[in-house]
């Protein structure tokens, strides 16, 4: 049996009281794609960061080609030809692809961009990338940026490649292309490790699957010997029903009518372009799209956090029957109109909650201004906090724990719990299950369903198309700030939505901040 390119033995890593990895042992060989599978928060990224020299393990050993090594810094990792492509790209926007690729390299000879371009082209041809070395990063789409990151590590001679959730930001079509490239790398004798939590990708791509659950190593299986059910079981421990109950909407009434909404961001780039849709009570309206297509701006515009140009956002008050235009009103003005709008933003700790405050004080965010007293009233927020902790099974040492200390799923339960407690008539949630494990995700889905059944108009921005298709009554697809289609959640297919997502893709630059729209 050949010596594995990289082998981990009994790796343990803790952050304070949180055990991120416990006694993990696994190996990857050359000419092989290893999928590291696990729910979000199961310690996959932490484990790979230790190989990449970003974290240092508390205990355990790492072997490269059978020899024990110490990887104390990313520089050490380079020396052992390990290259990691992180989930969040680390590129300089105003530099070209080639400039980013050589950035930080300490080469002896004089810098010669033509030579670099040539070498980048050779690498591209070998593995089948499509990239223009002279193109600036800010002009690139997400998948192009990812390509630059991959070439960057190949340029440095990496032959052990780690990719952290590379498909999270890609369309199905782009994913297919990436997989072809990864297969070519495998055939060229490289060891490829791909972190993911998407089962179908694991089955489609990998040769071997290693599974982590809550920081513990569960086991490695050969992809050809396994199936979706077995992997799910390894991943979540017990079998969870993958079915989400979807009741027929009861007596849907128009609650929110958005008409021809336009908005530009701070850089003057159009982020919403003629967006129109209706959200109805008692149904879940899903919003699908590639990350950064205007989903955030749309929800923030409704919540009064994003300035909009023309268009209107009409709220139909179910009690009084009055129509109110929420366009360019502040959150305070919206609340004063009696509009009960709850919003779970994408950035939970940066917007929805205050990380350093405890659960009680975070409950208070919505209610503190009530009453005319000069002092805050902490009794009812405290009982609300206790109620949410009990009902949503939030794992926390107590109500006075800063929310930053909680795990992602528990943070989200606190936030969603608070927003639901405000008894909304419109409930908006942006990526509410991002970073959550399967059980927490289902808690959130059930909460959204419960809101829908009690007659709330729910708007749900999601990234997992399978979930959108199982949960939503209607799905609005947004591409480059435009509505590219609204489909029925019960009949639409993934391919259909995938196509709609990329429909207006030829207008580049809207996917990412700082891009330029040349329309």
């Amino acid at each position, binding site marked *: 049996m050949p010596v594995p390119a990289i082998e981990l033995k009994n790796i343990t890593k803790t952050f304070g009281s949180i055990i991120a990895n416990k006694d993990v042992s696994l190996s990857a060989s050359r000419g092989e794609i290893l999928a590291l599978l696990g729910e979000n928060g199961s310690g996959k990224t932490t484990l790979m960061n230790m190989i990449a020299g970003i974290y240092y393990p508390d*205990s355990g050993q790492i072997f490269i080609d059978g020899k024990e090594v110490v990887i*104390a810094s990313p520089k050490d990792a380079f020396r052992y030809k390990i290259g990691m492509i992180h989930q969040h790209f680390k590129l300089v926007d105003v530099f070209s692809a080639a400039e980013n690729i050589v950035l930080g390299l300490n080469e002896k000879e004089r810098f010669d961009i033509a030579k670099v371009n040539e070498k980048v082209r050779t690498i591209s041809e070998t593995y089948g990338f499509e990239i223009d070395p002279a193109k600036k990063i800010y002009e690139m789409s997400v998948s192009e940026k990812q390509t630059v990151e991959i070439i960057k590590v190949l340029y440095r001679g990496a032959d052990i490649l780690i990719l952290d959730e590379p498909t999270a930001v890609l369309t199905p079509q782009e994913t297919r292309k990436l997989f072809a490239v990864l297969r070519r790398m495998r055939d060229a004798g490289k060891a490829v490790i791909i972190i993911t939590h998407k089962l179908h990708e694991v089955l489609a791509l990998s040769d071997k699957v290693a599974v982590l659950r809550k920081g513990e190593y569960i086991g490695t299986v050969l992809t050809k010997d396994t199936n979706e059910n077995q992997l799910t079981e390894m991943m979540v421990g017990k079998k969870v029903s993958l079915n989400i109950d979807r009741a027929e909407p009861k007596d849907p009434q128009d609650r929110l009518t958005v008409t021809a909404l336009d908005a530009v961001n701070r850089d003057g780039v159009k982020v919403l372009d003629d967006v129109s849709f209706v959200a109805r009570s008692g149904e879940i309206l899903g919003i699908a799209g590639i990350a950064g297509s205007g989903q955030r701006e749309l929800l923030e515009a409704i919540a009064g956090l994003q300035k909009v140009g023309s268009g209107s956002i009409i709220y139909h008050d179910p009690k009084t029957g009055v129509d109110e235009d929420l366009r360019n009103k*502040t959150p305070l003005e919206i609340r004063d109109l009696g509009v009960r709008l709850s919003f779970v933003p994408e950035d939970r700790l940066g917007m929805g909650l205050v990380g350093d405050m405890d659960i009680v004080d975070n409950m208070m965010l919505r209610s503190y201004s009530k009453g005319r007293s000069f*002092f805050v009233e902490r009794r009812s927020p405290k009982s609300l906090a206790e109620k949410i902790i009990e009902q949503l099974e939030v794992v926390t040492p107590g109500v006075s724990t800063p929310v930053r200390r909680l795990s992602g799923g528990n943070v989200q339960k606190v936030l969603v719990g608070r927003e639901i407690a405000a008894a909304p008539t419109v409930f908006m949630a942006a990526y509410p299950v991002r970073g959550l494990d399967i059980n927490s995700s289902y808690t959130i889905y059930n909460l959204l369903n419960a809101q829908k059944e009690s007659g709330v108009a729910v708007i749900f921005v999601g990234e997992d198309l399978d979930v959108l298709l199982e949960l939503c009554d209607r799905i609005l697809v947004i591409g480059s700030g435009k509505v590219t289609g609204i489909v029925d959640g019960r009949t639409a297919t993934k391919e259909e939505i995938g196509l709609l997502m990329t429909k207006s893709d030829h207008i580049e630059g809207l996917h990412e901040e700082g891009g330029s729209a040349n329309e």
Partner: protein
Amino acid sequence: MSDLNNKAPAPEKLPASPAPEAEKKVREPLFHIVKRAGIPRLKAWGIRVVAILLALLLNALIIHWLTGLDPLAVYKSMFDGSFSTSRKFWVLLQNTAMLLCIALAVTPCYKMRFWNLGAEGQVLIGALSSGALMFYVGDKLPSGVLIALMLGAALLSGILWAGFPALFKARFGTNETLFTLMMNYVAIQLVNTMIAIWVPSGSGVLGIMNSRTNNGWLPTVFGQKYALNIIIVSLLTVFMFIYLKYSKHGYEIAVVGESENTARYIGINVRKVVIRTAALSGCIAGLAGFLLMAGSAHTVSNTIAGGNGFTAVLVSWLAKFNPFVMILTSLLIEFLQKGAGEIAQAFRLSSDIADIATGIILFFIIGCEFFLNYRIMFRHKAQKEGK
């Protein structure tokens, strides 16, 4: 402080491991640093005490090495600086109270992450405006009315001095650090100008005003000149604690400071909170100026704040914005300063050596915060734990 790029729930960890020295023999780095989940209060205070003892020890060595003096004698004289006579003790309390008062002034700003470096100027302008009243109408009004007017003028001018930069920040997004800092110089030059006008001789020294009539002087309580100042600042400390912890304003300040996005999301009027908080801050700094002027100095000079506007920032941060802890930190700093002065005098040393000693003590106190937040794991220990 929140790092927006770091969305991982796990706390960050510093990779601080020396590169492997020997390639052949695989070695773990000598130590690495791990973030603590929390620390028992007793242990935390233990670490602080050890830090102070270490600082004293290092100081003793340095003093002995540089001057050949007996470190114990030097420490004793340091103590004498504050406690040898009852007058020195009262001066210590008065100075602590004033430093604390200014620290209380800047605290709401820093809690809101509004970098107010202008307390020095806000104190000065408070002292100047109350001094101006004393100069112009000091013998025309009854003392009570005069004091009330002086107080009003000091508070108002303090509000103005801090509110102005806040207004610009809220409206035009100017940088408050530079703006507040520059306002200090405006205040200093204003003081210089007024003194030049008031003192025709050109000596530049105003001298004590109303020293015969004591008109516009704060009354003496319990037979102690400084007692009233100390009582006022004590009450202010309690007020500030309650204001920050239990009032809606205090809550808004905390939210804006931690995350402006959350504040916007929840419908807090960030501009309003910024201006209101800066104004409060300036108001208290103005009060400090008034207390200095009417309660102890009875004159105006451009050194009346004595750099406390900046030292107060240190006091506030060291206490993590807790007004009650600030009593301790301001007392410590005043004690060190008095001690340093005493050492310099008693042993005829240059004041630099005293500054070195003070610096070392502060360095250790601030430095030990690192050990409160992080744990150092040594190689052998880590291996033992791993087994």
